[in-house]
C-alpha cells in the first residue's frame, strides 16, 4: 500500500533516486510539449496556443482521479499523502505576482530548467533571478512573516469546503476540464496560427471525453466518502501487518524518528 515511503519501503537516501527518476520524466514530458521555449509558453496569454492550460488541466484531472481510484482499490492511504495547507492571502498575492513574473520572464520555475538545458540563455537568467528573488524574500522575511501566515486555514480540500463527496468533486472537475478545453480550442482556432496548432481527430477526442466522464461518474457513485476522512495525527500509526517504520507527522517539526540509514526524515514541504 502506498505511499511506499511512508510505509518504510525505502529510506531517505533512496528517496533521492526516486526524486531523480520522477524529475527525469517530469523534464522529459515538459520538453516534449515544447515548454522549453518562452514563446510557446506565453502564447497562452495572447490567446494563440492553449497548450499550457491543456497540459496542466489534463495532468490535474488524471492525477486527482488516479489518486481517488488508487484509494478506492486500497493501493494508497490518502491520509498519509502530504496535503498542502491553505494560507489564502499569501496564495492569492503570490499567485498574482507569479503570473506577472511568468508573462514578464517567459517561464515558470520548472520550465526555466527545461529552457536552460536546451540552450536558452534567457532561461538561465530567469533562474538567476529566481535565486535572487528567494534571497530577497528571506531577507525581508521578518517584515513579511505575519502576511506569510495570514489566512491560514489548515488543510482544506474542495470536498470539505463544498460539503460534496470527493467522487462528485472529481466528476465536476472532469466536466469543467472538458468545458475549458472546448472554449480554449475555439479561441485558439480564432487567434492562433493554424499550422502550429495540434491536430487531433474529433472522434478520438469524443471517445476520450466519454471515458473521462464515465470514470468521473463511477467515482461519484462508488467512492466511499469515509475513506477520504483525514485522520488525526495520532491515528497515523502503521496498521498491523505493514512494515513498521518512521511515519512523518503532518505538523510540528519536532524530532522525527530515524530511518534505517541513520538519516532523519524532515518535514514535507510543498515546493
Amino acid at each position: 500500500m502506498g505511499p511506499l515511503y511512508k510505509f518504510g519501503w525505502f529510506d531517505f537516501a533512496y528517496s533521492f533516486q526516486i526524486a531523480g527518476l520522477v524529475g527525469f520524466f517530469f523534464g522529459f514530458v515538459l520538453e516534449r510539449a515544447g515548454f522549453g521555449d518562452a514563446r510557446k509558453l506565453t502564447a497562452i496569454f495572447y490567446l494563440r496556443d492553449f497548450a499550457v492550460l491543456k497540459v496542466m488541466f489534463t495532468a490535474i484531472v488524471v492525477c486527482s482521479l488516479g489518486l481517488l481510484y488508487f484509494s478506492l482499490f486500497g493501493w494508497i492511504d490518502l491520509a498519509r499523502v502530504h496535503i498542502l495547507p491553505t494560507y489564502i492571502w499569501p496564495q492569492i498575492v503570490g499567485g498574482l505576482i507569479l503570473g506577472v513574473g511568468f508573462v514578464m520572464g517567459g517561464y515558470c520555475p520548472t520550465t526555466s530548467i527545461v529552457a536552460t538545458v536546451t540552450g536558452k540563455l534567457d532561461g538561465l537568467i530567469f533562474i538567476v533571478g529566481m535565486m535572487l528573488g528567494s534571497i530577497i524574500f528571506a531577507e525581508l522575511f521578518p517584515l513579511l512573516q505575519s502576511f506569510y501566515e495570514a489566512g491560514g486555514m489548515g488543510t482544506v480540500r474542495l470536498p470539505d469546503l463544498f460539503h460534496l463527496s470527493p467522487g462528485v468533486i472529481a466528476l465536476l472537475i472532469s466536466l469543467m476540464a472538458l468545458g475549458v478545453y472546448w472554449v480554449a480550442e475555439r479561441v485558439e482556432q480564432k487567434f492562433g496560427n493554424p499550422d502550429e496548432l495540434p491536430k487531433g481527430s474529433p472522434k478520438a477526442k469524443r471517445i476520450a471525453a466519454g471515458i473521462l466522464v464515465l470514470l468521473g461518474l463511477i467515482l461519484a457513485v462508488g467512492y466511499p466518502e469515509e475513506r477520504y476522512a483525514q485522520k488525526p495525527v495520532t491515528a497515523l500509526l502503521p496498521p498491523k501487518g505493514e512494515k513498521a517504520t518512521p511515519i512523518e507527522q503532518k505538523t510540528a517539526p519536532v524530532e522525527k524518528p530515524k530511518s534505517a540509514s541513520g538519516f532523519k526524515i524532515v518535514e514535507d514541504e510543498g515546493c
Partner: protein
Amino acid sequence: MNKRYANPYAIGVCLGLVLLFSFYTMGRGVGSSASFARIGTFAMGLVAPEHTEANAYFSKYFRGGRSPLMAWLVFLSLGAGLGALFSAFIANRIKGEVARGPAMGVSARLWLALFGGILSGFAARLARGCTSGQALTGASELAFGSWVFMFCIFGGAYATAYLFRKEWL
C-alpha cells in the same frame, strides 16, 4: 530545428501519471522552486554563513544539520534537467538562443527575464510553491488554496499580458 511538439492532451496524461507515481512512492507531489531557493541559500551560506543561519527563513533549509542542497526537490530538479536534455537531444532541439518575439532586442529580453525571475522567486516563496509545487500538486490533491493560487497565476498574467506584448508578438 524540429518544432513539432507532442499533443498537449497526451502530454497532460503522461504528466498526470508521473505525478501519480510521485504520490504513490513518496506521498508527495513534484516541485522545483524550492530547489532554487536552496541553491540561493547555499550560496548565501558560503558568503555569510552566520547571517544566513540566523535568518528565520533561510534557517529552515539548514534543518537536520544537512547542507541545504541535500533535499528531495533538488534531486528532482537535477533529474528534470537531465530528462529535458534527453528529450531535446533526441528531437534535435538543442540550440543556443534567446527566446523572444521578432520585435524584441536581446538585452531588453534578458533584463525582463531577470526581473521576471526575481518576481517569480519571491512569489513562489510567499505562496509556498510554484506552478508545479503548489498549483499542479495541490490541485491534484484537491487542496483549496492551490486551486485559488492557480487561478490567480492566470489572473496576474492575463491582467499584465498587454504590457509585455512587444516582448512576445
